[in-house]
């Protein structure tokens, strides 16, 4: 974000006619959608509807079978595109944290910026300290992740992504693997992040959270975005019978 206020007119990620198959199984069906700068978009929907796959196509962790993913005017799915370079600007936080167990908390954060952005070590350390303070982990800086609780690991994973100064962060069910008492601390960090104007796309089963922080909610069903709208549109006034059925089960 670099401090500049987001421009909600600007399309950050544009998905065009995205389809994805795993063998014969079609998981995403011709999805066209845009994510704007500064937007917080929640994706909800039944298990197996393709939410994770859609999210993972946004940073090309899954290669689209057809269609395009355009990030900041570059077609990531095109040939001869250095995807690694663009991924530096698309953070991702996983359900199972995926922190690096062989590196200390601080090294988890400084590794990518020093390696890939050639940030000087002392500058990277200073920024890591700042980020750790921000999420209440500064006393853990020299611990290995094995000593952290699930909630602490996930907060670490979030600041590890932030250290690359991404323009958008993708969250795939960031609280699903957490003990209930730790869900709040992670959601609070994401909420704070949303308030700074960070662009966020989050797959979540936390309906209260989606309702509270999202600008827009996408309901996915059978590989399509079956319905979308403001939190009120979806949670109070859903039109699609599938959305209504899904919400009646989870709310």
């Amino acid at each position: 974000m670099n401090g500049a206020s987001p421009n909600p007119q600007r399309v950050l990620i544009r998905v065009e006619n995205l389809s994805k198959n795993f063998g014969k199984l079609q998981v995403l069906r011709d999805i066209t959608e845009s994510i704007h700068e500064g937007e917080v978009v929640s994706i909800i929907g039944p298990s197996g509807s393709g939410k994770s796959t859609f999210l993972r196509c946004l940073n090309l962790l899954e290669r689209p079978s057809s269609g395009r993913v355009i990030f900041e005017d570059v077609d990531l799915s095109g040939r001869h595109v250095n995807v690694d370079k663009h991924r530096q600007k698309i953070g991702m936080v996983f359900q199972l944290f995926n922190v690096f167990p062989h590196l200390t908390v601080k090294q988890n954060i400084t590794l990518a910026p020093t390696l890939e952005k050639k940030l000087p070590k002392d500058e990277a350390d200073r920024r890591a300290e700042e980020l750790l303070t921000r999420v209440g982990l500064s006393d853990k800086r020299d611990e290995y992740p094995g000593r952290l609780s699930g909630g602490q690991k996930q907060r670490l994973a979030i600041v590890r992504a932030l250290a690359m100064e991404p323009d958008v962060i993708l969250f795939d069910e960031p609280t699903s693997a957490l003990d209930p008492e730790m869900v709040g601390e992670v959601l609070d960090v994401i909420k704070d992040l949303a308030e700074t104007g960070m662009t966020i796309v989050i797959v979540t089963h936390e309906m209260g959270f989606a309702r509270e922080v999202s600008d827009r909610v996408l309901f996915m069903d059978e590989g399509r975005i079956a319905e979308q709208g403001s939190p009120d549109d979806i949670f109070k006034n859903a039109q699609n019978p599938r959305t209504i059925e899904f919400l009646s089960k989870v709310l």
Partner: protein
Amino acid sequence: MLHQIAALWAKYSYVFLQGLGGTMWYSLISVAFAVFFGTILAVMRLSRFKPFEWLVDGYLWIIRGTPILLQLYFFWLGVPKLLNLQIPEDVCIITALIVNASAYVCEVIRAGIQAVDYGQTEAAKSLGLSDFNAMTRIILPQAIKNILPALGNEFIVMVKQTSLASVFFLPELMTAQKTVQSATFLPLPAMIIAGLIYLFVTTVLTFGLQFFERMLHKSERSVA
């Protein structure tokens, strides 16, 4: 018999020990080079570049599907003929041992890499790390815990396997044993001494390895 063994040892211990030195040297150098080449092969095999995959699979197929003695003969006799070169015999044999061991080490390393949670690769990629940095900074450092014990086993196998070099009269323990046999016409005591030395070395190595593995697990418990 015991008396003969003791007498033989008293007189020829230096021959046996020199032989042992040769055995250890061949084993060390073969495994060291095999680790280097095996790592490259494993990474090639795991890259999603098909020609590399086929190349490594073909190599593994040949090495694991033919007897090592045939491979040694091939490098001892065949390769110098093919290249029309005079190659020192020990170079031929060591090369063959390396080529053979690389195949097995490749499999050890590949298994070690594959045992690392795929989420680690995804996290590295999502941060924008290049394939090379993801492999060298994230995956290999974690794979090493799975790989090192298996490499230790590979070394123990190699200590025994270098005995095949005696077919070509290279200076190692089996050859030393043959030398003593023909000098003394006492085949059984010579064999027993060689056998005891092999047993001693492999036992010490096995215990050392077990100790080392326990240490690794301990550090893992406190870290991971």
